[in-house]
């Protein structure tokens, strides 16, 4: 699969007359991982919805172009901030939802779903109902469902927020492995996570918000947590989150 890049231009969004952002323009390089940070309520989830082409109740507008000029729809996987598990499908069937909604899961797909559930540490829960899962387990099922899609563009909205630190590190590695070569946009509140996984880090901030770039450590993701680079840059990033408009690194895209 060749990588698929895409870019937004003139993205704007308002709720009840108030501009959340207006005129955002940004380019997502094929096969790159972008970490998106920003204060709670800054519009990260809404931006993901716009890219995914999902309905938004108020004024909004965006021009999306892809590197191969064909539409993005049908070629992206979206992992929402809420896990959105279907209560009437067992864990394995939630992972297989994509094929079930397009056609009918094949035996090979079933096996792949089982493998993915094993990867996220849920091989003993494949036949359970979602209501019997813990919060972190639900999130991992949703992650497995997203990974299953094997789409060239992946939008993930705080995909690791409900799991413990160790599991999180494991999932980072899993995601990095399985999504190598995909264009990934990752919303996260954890600066370390962003530094670990991203080729590029964007901060959404301001009123109306704009996007600004932050330095990332050298080397390829997933980076080791104890790399001195990562530690140093974390405090830098946290400072940037505090004072978003200071022209510390040059302005946004």
């Amino acid at each position, binding site marked *: 699969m060749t990588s698929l890049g895409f870019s937004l231009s003139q993205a704007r969004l308002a709720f009840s007359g108030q501009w959340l952002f207006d005129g955002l323009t940004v380019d997502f390089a094929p096969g790159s991982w972008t970490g998106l940070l920003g204060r709670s309520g800054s519009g990260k989830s809404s931006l993901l*919805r716009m890219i*995914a*082409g*999902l*309905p938004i109740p108020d004024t909004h507008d965006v021009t999306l172009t892809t590197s191969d000029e064909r539409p993005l729809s*049908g070629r*992206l*996987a*979206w992992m*929402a901030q*809420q896990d*959105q598990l*279907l*209560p*009437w499908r067992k864990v394995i069937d939630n992972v297989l*939802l*994509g094929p*079930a*909604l*397009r056609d009918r899961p094949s035996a090979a797909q079933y096996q792949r779903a089982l493998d993915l559930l094993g990867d996220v540490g849920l091989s003993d829960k494949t036949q359970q*109902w*979602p*209501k019997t899962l813990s919060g972190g387990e639900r999130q991992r099922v949703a992650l497995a469902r997203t990974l299953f*899609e094997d789409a060239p563009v992946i939008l993930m909205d705080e995909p690791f927020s409900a799991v413990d630190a160790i599991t999180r590190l494991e999932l980072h590695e899993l995601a990095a492995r399985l999504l190598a070569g995909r264009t990934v946009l990752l919303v996260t509140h954890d600066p370390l996570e962003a530094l670990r996984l991203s080729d590029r880090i964007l901060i959404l901030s301001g009123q109306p918000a704009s996007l600004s770039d932050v330095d990332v450590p050298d080397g390829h993701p997933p980076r080791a947590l104890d790399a001195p680079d990562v530690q140093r840059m974390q405090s830098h990033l946290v400072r940037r989150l505090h004072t978003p408009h200071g022209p510390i690194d040059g302005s946004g895209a």
Partner: protein
Amino acid sequence: MSMLKRFWPALLGIITLLGLWQILVVVSGVPDYILPAPLTVAQAFAAHQPLLWHHAGITVIEIVAGLLIGFISGLGTALALARFHGLRRTLLPILLISQAVPLFALAPILMLWLGYGMTAKIVMATLIIYFPVASTCYDGLRQTPQGWLDLAQTLGADRRRRLLRIQLPAALPALASGMRMAASAAPIGAVIGEWVGSSQGLGYLMLNANARMQVDLMFAALLILVTFGVALYFTTDALMRRLMPWHDDRISTR
């Protein structure tokens, strides 16, 4: 055993009701020709067993057929309404109107087209069940949480699969509610059908007995009918629960 358990509360309620009924008759002194006492009805029941069962058999067939057809067509209508939007604008009011028309008014037309055989009665029972099922299912189908619809969209579901694999299961609790209700109304549909034109069935027997002031016989027939209604309710309930193993409605919240 578990059947007994399931039906025990119903039995208790029925016994209570019978008790109240007997007390009412004794205390208020209602004449027999208006409201016979349960014991009188029991006697009539015993005396007319073959007659009652003969007519009951016919009514059961009408009820079950009406129920099945009503369920299926109601569900089908709801799905069609949810699937095709143009349809909704015109079909929904037609549906509403069909519901608002007293069946009695249509009876001569139905009889003219369908004769006075069983078909007409099945159609009547169907019509009675059809609307509640269609209406509750449609309401249920409309109320799918947005997040699941979004998910379906990004996963590339077509409308048909989104309807069948997301909206329909999400609507099952609402649907179960409508089905239960409709099931207990089905006997009335069949009976109205029989009133309108028939020489067989419990409805016929009841009207006939009523016209002859054999009120005890009428109530005996009524008793069978009510038993059907209640049994259908619980059967439907059990079936719908089977369909929703993941769903716990909190029968026993503290």
